[in-house]
């Protein structure tokens, strides 16, 4: 009896989903016919005819839309990859400081986390761009021209690495924002390690720093990782706010292309697929990492 009932429920859910998709696809094809656009990706090979301020590979307006999209994807990766690394560092340092014994560091960490988590990311990005970079008069030099130069054009590191103001403010905004969230994840992980482990490393004479690094963090990682993964995925998705500071990431470029060609459906499908692909890679990497660090629990 019970098996039969659960079968009915499953068939029912299947039917509802089927009808929902049928309606959506029907709606889509009616709209496509009405706007006189066929569902096609041929337009990807036509020249883009717009310029891009930043392109890690050679690009000119006569290149195809496909190439422009690819450049956008690389621009996004450039932001996501660097932000991922720096926000992890910020997050771990802040999270550890928050659980540590130094009262001053604790207060600084707590205020940073509170401030960042209670304000919108879009606002923070605007702040870094307009207040942080565009309002700089002349150049700020730390400590000489060969190391670090800040101006309203962006950041110049070691005299020959130039980062635009758009890229810099996006990376700074994303890392500062994500770092605060990662710090909370790290704090939760550290608190999940039994108190006895702290007493054990102290009682064998280890100092606080090496105890935290060698004993506490490795045991906190299994609890940290799932939260860390979702922060990484959020970071990748939040990078589309690049459009707010005028950075040519994949979303900004797709937006331009959709405006030029009217290919909203194909454009959004490509956009969604590229993020799905990117985030699947992040998830897979984190799963792999999780296997490594929890090995000792499964011997």
């Amino acid at each position, binding site marked *: 009896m019970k098996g039969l009932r659960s079968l009915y429920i499953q068939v029912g859910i299947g039917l509802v989903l089927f009808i929902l998709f049928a309606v959506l696809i029907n709606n889509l094809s009616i709209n496509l016919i009405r706007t006189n656009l066929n569902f096609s990706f041929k337009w990807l090979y036509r020249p883009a005819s717009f310029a891009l301020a930043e392109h890690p590979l050679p690009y000119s307006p006569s290149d195809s839309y496909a190439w422009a999209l690819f450049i956008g994807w690389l621009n996004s990766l450039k932001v996501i990859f660097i932000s991922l690394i720096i926000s992890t560092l910020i997050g771990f340092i802040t999270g550890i400081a928050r659980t540590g014994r130094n009262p001053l560091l604790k207060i600084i960490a707590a205020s940073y986390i509170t401030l960042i988590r209670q304000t919108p990311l879009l606002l923070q990005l605007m702040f870094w761009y307009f207040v942080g970079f565009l309002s700089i008069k002349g150049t700020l030099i730390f400590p000489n021209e060969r190391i670090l130069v800040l101006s309203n054009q962006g950041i110049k590191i070691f005299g020959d690495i130039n980062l635009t103001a758009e890229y810099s403010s996006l990376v700074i905004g994303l890392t500062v924002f994500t770092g605060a969230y990662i710090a909370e994840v790290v704090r939760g992980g550290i608190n999940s390690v039994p108190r006895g482990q702290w007493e054990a*490393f102290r009682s064998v*004479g*280890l100092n606080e720093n090496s105890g935290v690094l060698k004993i506490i963090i490795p*045991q906190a990682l299994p609890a940290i990782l799932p939260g860390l993964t979702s922060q990484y995925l959020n970071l990748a998705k939040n990078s589309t706010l690049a459009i707010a500071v005028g950075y040519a990431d994949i979303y900004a470029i797709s937006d331009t292309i959709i405006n030029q060609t009217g290919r909203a459906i194909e454009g959004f499908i490509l956009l969604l697929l590229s993020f799905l692909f990117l985030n699947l890679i992040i998830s897979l990497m984190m799963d792999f990492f999780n296997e490594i660090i929890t090995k000792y*629990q499964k011997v």
Partner: protein
Amino acid sequence: MINPIVSANELVKTYSKGLIALNNISMVVNKKEVLVVMGPSGSGKSTLIRTFNGLESFDSGELEVVGITIGTDPEDRKVREIRKRVGMVFQQFNLFPHLSILENITLAPIQVQRKNRIEAEDHAMELLSQMGIEKQAKKYPIQLSGGEQQRVAIARSLAVNPELLLFDEPTSALDPERVNEVLDAMRKLAQDGMTMVVVTHEVSFAKEVADRVVFMDSGKIIETSSPNVFFNNAKEERSRKFLNQIIK
């Protein structure tokens, strides 16, 4: 006159709720002595030995351990110096689960004493065979029985050649049939002349191994006697009452 390894003078510790954990404790632990601390739960016996290696602080009094004086607001450097020379074995073993048995034992010699790895591992293997578990060296704590884990914990505390070993109810978390293997290891240590302070409820161990028994209740030392006197003819009424409850 040899200086005692631990000398406590009028130690007082009060928890924030007004509970008195240590109430004017004065005592000494002499070199090569096995001191057993007994008492009902909440009597402050664990708190007392945990002040000896700085895991607990105290509100007033004086404490000198292995020649180092620590006050009510101890410097980290001094506390760490004590911990390098005093080992501790916990009720819950507290082995590092992500490290192999061998790594658990060599961690402090390599990280704290800056010994080289080979030397540290040789010493660790020696300690493990002394504990009768040299075959488990490559395994992880989770793969061992409670009794074996506790013997690893003893080996870990011995790895830095401590002058004093503190045992905080080392057999309380073990299955009954595993208690003796740990007590045997501790008997051997006592015979070899290790200075030990043991918080335990194991009467037979105390009778056989202890040089003195300290009985505590409500944060006070009620009685300090030889095991012979304590178990057969305790001086204090409160001690006799406690013994009646644990020995049936």
